[in-house]
């Protein structure tokens, strides 16, 4: 099993969710995060002092999936989240050793 962790632009969340639903993904967990990356240099001014806002609002979407469909999920996210502009975000794929559904004690791929 894999944990697919995608950092995307917040307003793309809805589209990503819908695209994933279409390929049958039924679960995910979303976190509000701030991202620091190449997309920066946008300078803000607060009461006269300039400062660079390096940290931009992003959303992290985490999806646990069976190994075989991981690639498809990644592609789906890429397609849905892409604007082509800098700051579109990243996807990281991590290995999961075990998964449990709390409600039923199910284990493994059946749990996700």
């Amino acid at each position, binding site marked *: 099993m894999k944990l697919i962790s995608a950092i995307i*632009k917040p307003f793309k969340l809805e589209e990503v969710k819908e695209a994933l639903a279409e390929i049958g993904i039924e679960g995910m967990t979303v976190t509000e995060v701030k991202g620091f990356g190449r997309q920066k240099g946008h300078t*803000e*001014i607060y009461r006269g002092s300039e*400062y660079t*806002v390096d940290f931009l609002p992003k959303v992290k979407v985490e999806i646990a999936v069976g190994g075989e469909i991981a690639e498809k999920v990644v592609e789906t996210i890429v397609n849905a989240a892409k604007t082509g*502009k800098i700051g579109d975000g990243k996807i990281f794929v991590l290995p999961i050793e075990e998964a449990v559904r709390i409600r039923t004690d199910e284990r493994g791929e059946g749990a996700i």
Partner: protein
Amino acid sequence: MKSKKSLLFTALVLLGVFGSAIHGFAQEEAVAAAVEAAAPDEDYLALKTQYGETFDFFTTSVLWTLIAAGLVFIMHLGFATLETGLTRSKNSVNILFKNVFIICMGLLTYAVWGFNAMYPGWEGSGFFAMGSPLTMEAYGNTDFSYGGTALAMTGWADFIFQAMFAATAATIVSGAVAERIKLGSFMVIGTLLVMFLYPMSGSWKWGAGWLDGMGFYDFAGSTLVHAFGGFAALAAVIVLGPRKGKYLEGGRIRPILGHSMPLATIGVFLLFLGWFGFNGGSVLSANPEGISFVFVTTALAAAAGGFSSIFFSWILLKKPDLSMALNGILAGLVGITAGADSVTLWSSVVIGLIAGVLVVISILFFDKIKIDDPVGAISVHGVCGIWGTLAVGLPFFNGGNEDLSFFTQLIGTLSVAIFAFVGTFILCIIVKALMGIRVSAEEEDEGLDIGEHGQEAYPDFAPASR
């Protein structure tokens, strides 16, 4: 770069205000002397002797008018928090900024132009007043007999009360166009609206113009303020288009939730409070019978509006919806504004009940036809403004007062609504052509706070504020 045009505009307006001020200086020496003569430690007995037995009533009336001006002022905070609460946090700085700008600009432009245009200088065609825009004599004099005994107040009290009203027209628009209008464009549109369009149609009635001549009745502005604002908002929204992502294919509507219901609720309570000044102050004296009657009709209509919208939306939508309850209170208040002094007491309840139902239907309707109004301004102010004005013309509500005619009311409210709509529409089209009216799709996605102001409303998680 993007703010170049706004800055150009700035320069012009600043110039205008300074110019006016200089013009003003020339003419007010006499006034300054007079003010001094009435310094507070002067013996007021002298004044009393001078103005005879009307003095005490006059004093109380001025006091009430000023307090009412303060109450109307606080409505601007009400609008600011209501609009902020009902929109997304990524646009909050922008909305707050617009509201701060409007009250500043509104007071200044009304001083240099609007007040004289709307009231005393009514002469000529009957369609547009051209008072002496910058002289003090026209409204700032110290003569207690300003306006005659019927208008028991100084010109200054009258000015400040009316000035607080004036900015409301732009404030109503500001909520409807939220989350997508360019800041500079809104500032230009709002300024021209408050400076020219509002006093123009206002003078038709309150400046003794052609509507007044016809017998049109609008006590505190269901039509002249609220329907005006609501239909100006409708025009602006049509030119602007809906927010990105609001209307999906297949007629599906994706609601865009406001980010803070406590802020929105604070807004409505403050508006309710301020309305006592809006309607009560429109008695234009402290006539005890008049103001106490108006307080009662205002409160009952607001309560009835909230009450009926709570239950009507509950039945219709299956859930007790707080945002509908809030809009219902405002609907009741807008509805009673035209007739707060002249409908019967129980009519105020019925007017409010109907307004509360109407506003719910209207909000759903405008959403159906893809008019995207984030705060419901068009329904609350536009639709209920018309409703309240018409109600005054119905014998059922006005207790059979023969001076009031449904037909005249209809003509009055439609002509103002159409004027506001057409005028604002043209204005928006011109602004759109000259400087653009809508932020880029990217900026809309990112939020106007960062796009236009480079400032977040709640930046606590910004590393700079750790």
